[in-house]
């Protein structure tokens, strides 16, 4: 409903209706155009350019049109599939941990009555620090000889000798996952905390009177009330994690032997180490496809596809 129509009585009479409509349209366009023109330049045009690039084979200054050849080569390339697999392992582990730990922390924080803000700030800190900078802290902590993590693990007897965390495929992948978990939990925690605070406390009181155990309360009150947020938050987190680049780029650059080469890192290495912009753009377009698929889930979950997202 057009807001100005509701007060039609107070505004110019109906016979000016048509002119008013035009004026309205012009005004609406004037407000919306700047951002749109800007986005056309900084998003739509570069995106188009990326697609065009994916149709070319580029070697140094020479480039030749090859149609969808890059796509054929990419999907028949084992490196792409192994990178996709790494991306899936990385994303699934990180998101699952973000959700589980984030929910756990939110449940704890929700019961804290003193210094809530202080706790919230403390837990938010890993998320505030730039991922590229946070990664450097972990590089030092994971350092094989003098790093504190090996020291702590050895002193509690969990490992008998120092581990070269980033030097071996499996432990490198585990390491970058742990760093991303550290960084990503606060975001999920905040979302879950926001959700918990909307659950009416009366529900819990009633359940307690009926003799529900804390576990039952969690199962039958907390979870159903959080379900929507969990779906939306998880989808968003999947999108953010599958395109994440910074931590892995700084910590391993994709190595050792491609063990941590998730799709964005493969893309970067293809473009700026191997200088194959065409193939890199192709990987990017395929990655975009994956992200878009999850975006559709997100849009559906939030019912944005109806009514322009209005409540």
């Amino acid at each position, binding site marked *: 409903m057009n807001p100005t129509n509701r007060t039609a009585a107070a505004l110019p009479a109906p016979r000016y209706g048509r002119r008013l409509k035009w004026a309205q349209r012009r005004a609406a366009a004037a407000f919306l155009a700047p951002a749109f023109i800007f986005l056309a330049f900084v998003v739509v045009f570069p995106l188009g350019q*990326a697609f065009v690039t994916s149709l070319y084979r580029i070697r140094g200054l020479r480039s030749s049109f090859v149609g969808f050849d890059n796509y054929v080569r990419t999907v028949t390339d084992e490196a792409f599939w192994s990178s996709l697999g790494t991306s899936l392992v990385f994303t699934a582990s990180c998101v699952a941990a973000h959700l589980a730990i984030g929910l756990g922390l939110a449940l704890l924080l929700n019961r804290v009555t003193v210094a809530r803000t202080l706790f919230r700030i403390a837990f938010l800190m890993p998320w505030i*620090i730039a991922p590229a900078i946070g990664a450097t802290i972990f590089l030092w902590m994971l350092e094989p*000889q003098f790093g504190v993590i090996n020291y702590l693990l050895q002193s509690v007897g969990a490992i008998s000798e120092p581990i070269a965390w980033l030097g071996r495929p499996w432990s490198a992948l585990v390491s970058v996952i742990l760093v991303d978990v550290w960084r990503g939990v606060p975001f999920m925690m905040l979302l879950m905390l926001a959700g918990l605070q909307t659950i009416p406390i009366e529900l819990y009181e009633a359940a307690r009177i009926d003799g529900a155990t804390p576990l039952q309360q969690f199962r039958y009150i907390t979870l159903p009330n959080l379900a929507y947020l969990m779906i939306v938050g998880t989808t968003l987190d999947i999108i953010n994690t599958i395109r994440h680049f910074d931590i892995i780029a700084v910590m391993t650059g994709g190595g050792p032997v491609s063990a941590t080469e998730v799709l964005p890192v493969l893309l970067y290495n293809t473009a700026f180490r191997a200088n194959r912009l065409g193939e890199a753009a192709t990987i990017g377009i395929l990655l975009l496809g994956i992200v878009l698929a999850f975006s559709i889930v997100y849009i559906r979950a939030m019912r944005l596809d109806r009514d322009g997202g209005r409540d």
Partner: protein
Amino acid sequence: MTRSTLLTRTAFWLTLAVALVVFLFPIYWMVNTSLKPSEEIFLSPPTFYSVNWTFDAYFDVLANRPLFRYLINSFIVATGTTIVAVSLSALTAYGFTRFKIRFATAFIVFLIFTKMLPETLLIIPYFQLMSKLGLINTYLSLILAYSSFALPFAAWILIGFFRSIPTELDEAAMIDGASRLDIFLKVVLPLARPGLVAVAMFTFLLAWNAYVFALVLTTDADMFVISVGVANLVGEYQVEWNELMAAALVGAAPVLVIFSILNRHLVEAITAGALKG
């Protein structure tokens, strides 16, 4: 207090304390290492608190790397991005919530898609275009690149905030003869201030922390932003761990301080950004 509630209480606080220690330990370790004298870094077992603490690492790293220059670069780029994103998205949010828009749904979906684009995909065309335009190593290239993700995000949150401002206020002002622009500037914007502040802060943080665009679009060491400047020290010859941690702290401290103080706005923007404004 019965014994069982005492037990659950202890367990509760213990869990919280352990979680707190785990999440904050890396930050503590950064601070701790940055204050160690060089000889102490390679001690085994490592010292958890250095009695010989010193600012030497800070002086050393600042003498060799223009960290303050990086901070200024980051500040300029993040501020520029924030101004572009907030001003354009405020106009958009006003237009979107005050007029009947024919393709409202398409518009929202477009915003969401753009906000979710993988930035690594965009660095390729950005690298090509900025090289062609001779804009490599300029603030402008970074501000444009950062706006590509900051603007959709800001617009998305602000639409939510603007929706909560009743349109009756606009109508009243319109009857009094105010123009659309007057209403926008003098009626709606002041009312949207909490939202604008939250969005501005969030945009600033996104831009401050961004890495990959700056990694590709700057090659001149004087034009590095702080995230790239710090990460580039990794594995560099002659850079000791205490210096690296000092540099990391220099990069992290400004945002940690600002956002700890203004955390309420940040939290608001984060939840609004994930959900609907």
